[in-house]
């Protein structure tokens, strides 16, 4: 019998279980002539059988209940859970899912507010976007108005509307449609911003000279608002770390890096987004 391998012979042997009757007969002849190949096929099957073998798990209680044999303590366990939740963005919009990037005006108009992390209950209880009203001759006033269609146009001013439950330090990171991330509030990172609780704030002050005016890059604009009741991280370090971690990243990666940076140190981090159009 000719036991030389022809093109396709090995593939047919590897797919033995998937062959029809005639294919198996042909493969059986080849395997009979090539015991080395038959032994290798059997070895592969043995590996698969081992992989299929069920783990000998003893009982449910042994898994689901706490056990004194574990050296883990509760504080470590809670901290580990917090880190895993933070890494998965629990409570956030599914920002890893590219579908949310679709510029569906209806979705973006909703300006979803969702908690990314809340270690001690809600501190930031409301977050939205408004713009500064303009007169008929184009002069900007100081009043803010809701977005008419969930979008802002190039040249319009962004004002975040922030409701705080308690007094809190506040910082804001902006991630633009191209992934450029910047600490935009407080405007001077050498001075922390502690805002009063129990009231609504507009960031930045719509009457100030430091308005956030949208430039020509259109797409989804994201603002991460971080709040903390007790401590304010050194903002100059936040700014430097932000630059180091987001430089050269695309939008999704930059947003994730910025979020990760804030989550490690602030009580609560929220995100608000809208569509920037021409």
């Amino acid at each position, binding site marked *: 019998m000719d036991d030389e391998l022809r093109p396709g012979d090995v593939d047919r042997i590897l797919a033995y279980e998937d062959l029809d009757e005639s294919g198996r007969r042909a493969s059986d002849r080849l395997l009979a002539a090539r015991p080395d190949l038959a032994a290798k096929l059997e070895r*592969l099957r043995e590996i698969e059988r081992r*992989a299929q073998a069920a783990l000998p798990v003893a009982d449910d209680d042994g898994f689901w209940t706490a056990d004194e044999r574990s050296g883990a303590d509760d504080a470590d366990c809670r901290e580990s859970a917090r880190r895993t939740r933070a890494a998965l963005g629990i409570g956030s919009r599914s920002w890893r899912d590219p579908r949310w990037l679709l510029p569906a005006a209806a979705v973006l108009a909703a300006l979803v507010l969702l908690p990314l992390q809340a270690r001690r209950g809600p501190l930031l209880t409301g977050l939205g976007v408004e713009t500064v009203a303009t007169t008929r001759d184009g002069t900007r006033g100081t009043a803010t108005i809701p977005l008419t269609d969930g979008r802002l146009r190039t040249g319009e001013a962004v004002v975040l509307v922030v409701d705080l439950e308690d007094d809190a330090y506040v910082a804001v990171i902006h991630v633009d449609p191209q992934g450029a991330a910047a600490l935009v509030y407080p405007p001077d990172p050498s001075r922390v911003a502690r805002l009063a609780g129990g009231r609504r704030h507009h960031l930045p002050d719509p009457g100030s000279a430091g308005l956030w005016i949208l430039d020509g890059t259109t797409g989804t604009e994201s603002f991460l608002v971080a709040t903390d009741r007790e401590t304010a991280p050194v903002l100059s370090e936040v700014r430097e770390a932000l630059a180091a971690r987001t430089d050269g990243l695309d939008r999704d990666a930059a947003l994730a890096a910025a979020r990760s940076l804030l989550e490690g140190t602030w009580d609560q981090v929220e995100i608000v987004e809208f569509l920037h159009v021409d």
Partner: protein
Amino acid sequence: MNAATPFRPDIDERELARGLAARRPRHVAAFLERTHRPVYLMAGRLTSDPETRHDWTHDVLLKVLDDLARGAFVYRRPGSFWAWFRTRAYFLLINQYRRRKQQQDRWTAGETGEAILASLPLEPGVDPTSLVENVEARAIIEDCLRRLPNADQQRALRLLLLEECAYQAVADVMDAELNTVRSWIRRARIAMRRCVARAFGLSLEDGR
């Protein structure tokens, strides 16, 4: 505790599995609330280092979520999700432990298996060498499956090989024609077995 209702029934098991596959935050949050602690405590039996415990727990939970997103779990009956999770979490933890022992060059299948058997609530009388070899075989098979470039082929073979689905069940789950599924599985099996052969140093074309 009953396997079918290991926790508060605030989210139905089938709905939970669907929500996790879709990565819905509410479901992921409920899943983590229920599973993190038991997995962390199991990891604590295998390592005393809190950072390693966290890393292993984190990896296990993320891999389970990835499995679900890739359609690796098929709901069959009440209790099947938690039974699948428990076995899956055990495998992933044991595999982490095995890999660390290998990296530390203090690894033999027998000794490692003995340590696992002494630490985790596994059935008595299990051959420790066989346990570790099975875990190793599973790890290589899963690694080779992950390397398959076609997602449909990968999922079809995974369901057939590791989730014990018949061809028709795979077709039903994947909402595909049976002949299409057969073709996917055939192609996937060839590629996977070539990958496994390489991992075990089996030369298929030239050696005798």
